[in-house]
């Protein structure tokens, strides 16, 4: 399996699974505007996933397209972060998850624009623009809830305490990634971590939130070792293609 295929699969799966999670809010948003906002962001993410997974299929060269990769793999073959498959919880939990993710994807796409792989650079250039809107939205909500009422502060602090342990995984890289960094195809995630940390520190301070002292971290998603939540997501996501193979909408 080529290193680049593996990499594209990772970032494509992140978009796909988080896009699916956000789409679960459709019709359940706390207010109409947020219902629309979350589904808009879901649409951007699923759009990114389509482009990325189609490209992964091309790189693989076994005749699988983006749809085949999205709908016909088993859970162990998905490479997404554990963070993005975590349940929506309350609105605060969803916004905190989104904020951690957006603060990571913005610098990642910024750097990927300069990738020596022209297709990946083009996808990053396109996705970066919409990611700016996503980060503006999620960071504003983290601040508003954190620096809001006693109840909203407590809830978003709970979300931070729950999700913090999934953030270290954002920056894990394997030997395939190191090979790609060497060739100038992808950026070093240690560089991205610095930008992420800066954004997170600034926003959490403004939101009067505190990072938990416990530094236990979870990982495994990048190697296909997922939490139990992914199975349920896939059951819903893949149902139609599994029940009626090759059906078209």
């Amino acid at each position, binding site marked *: 399996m080529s290193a680049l295929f593996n990499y594209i699969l990772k970032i494509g799966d992140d978009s796909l699974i988080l896009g699916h999670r956000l789409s679960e809010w459709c019709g359940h948003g706390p207010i109409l505007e947020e219902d*629309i906002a979350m589904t808009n962001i879901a649409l951007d993410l699923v759009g990114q996933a389509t482009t990325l997974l189609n490209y992964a299929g091309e790189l693989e060269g076994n005749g699988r397209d983006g749809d085949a990769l999205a709908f016909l793999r088993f859970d162990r073959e998905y490479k997404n972060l554990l963070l993005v498959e975590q349940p929506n919880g309350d609105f605060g939990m969803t916004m905190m998850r989104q904020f951690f993710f957006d603060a990571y994807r913005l610098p990642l796409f910024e750097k990927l624009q300069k990738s020596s792989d022209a297709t990946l650079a083009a996808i990053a250039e396109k996705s970066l623009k919409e990611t700016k809107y996503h980060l503006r939205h999620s960071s504003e909500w983290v601040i508003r809830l954190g620096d809001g009422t006693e109840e909203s502060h407590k809830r978003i602090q709970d979300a931070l305490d729950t999700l913090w342990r999934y953030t270290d995984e954002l920056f894990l890289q394997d030997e395939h990634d190191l090979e790609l960094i060497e060739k100038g195809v992808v950026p070093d995630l240690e560089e991205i971590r610095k930008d992420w940390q800066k954004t997170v520190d600034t926003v959490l301070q403004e939101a009067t939130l505190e990072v938990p002292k416990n530094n236990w971290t979870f990982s495994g998603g990048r190697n296909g070792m997922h939490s139990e939540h992914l199975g349920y997501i896939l059951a819903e996501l893949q149902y139609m293609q599994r029940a009626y193979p090759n059906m078209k909408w």
Partner: protein
Amino acid sequence: MVTREQVWKWLYEVSDPEIPVLSIIDLGVVREVNVEADLCLITITPTYSGCPAMKTIEDDIISKLKQEGVEDVKVNLVLSPAWTTDWISEEGREKLRAYGIAPPENEVDKSVLFAEPPTVPCPLCTSRNTRMISLFGSTACKAQYQCNDCLEPFDYFKCLK
């Protein structure tokens, strides 16, 4: 044989499926037209990654050109250079305003965090006393605003750079 100029004119008559007053040329999604022998190759670029209108635009281009007698049409999708609202024509901006959608303001590429929403004049009464209700709206490309003077809620075609 058809000329490129002729094809551009035909494409001008293809409208955006979400904002029918706008032609796909006004919107700036058609990047290139090439005519080689019998083949007509059209290059388009998406506005947003997940914009569901892209497939419809592709189908509409093919059916419009078939209707004009061009049988062999290929639509190619490119991502780079990425679409920006700067590519919406002056005429397109006027059409948007007349339709009740505020066209994109020329926002400089400011920082993402702690950014104030842009001041957007109301397309109905032109007052600048308006407020942003949500950064996201009825389609990926729009935000929701309301005029504080005439109270009209309106869509803002948000700046994408």
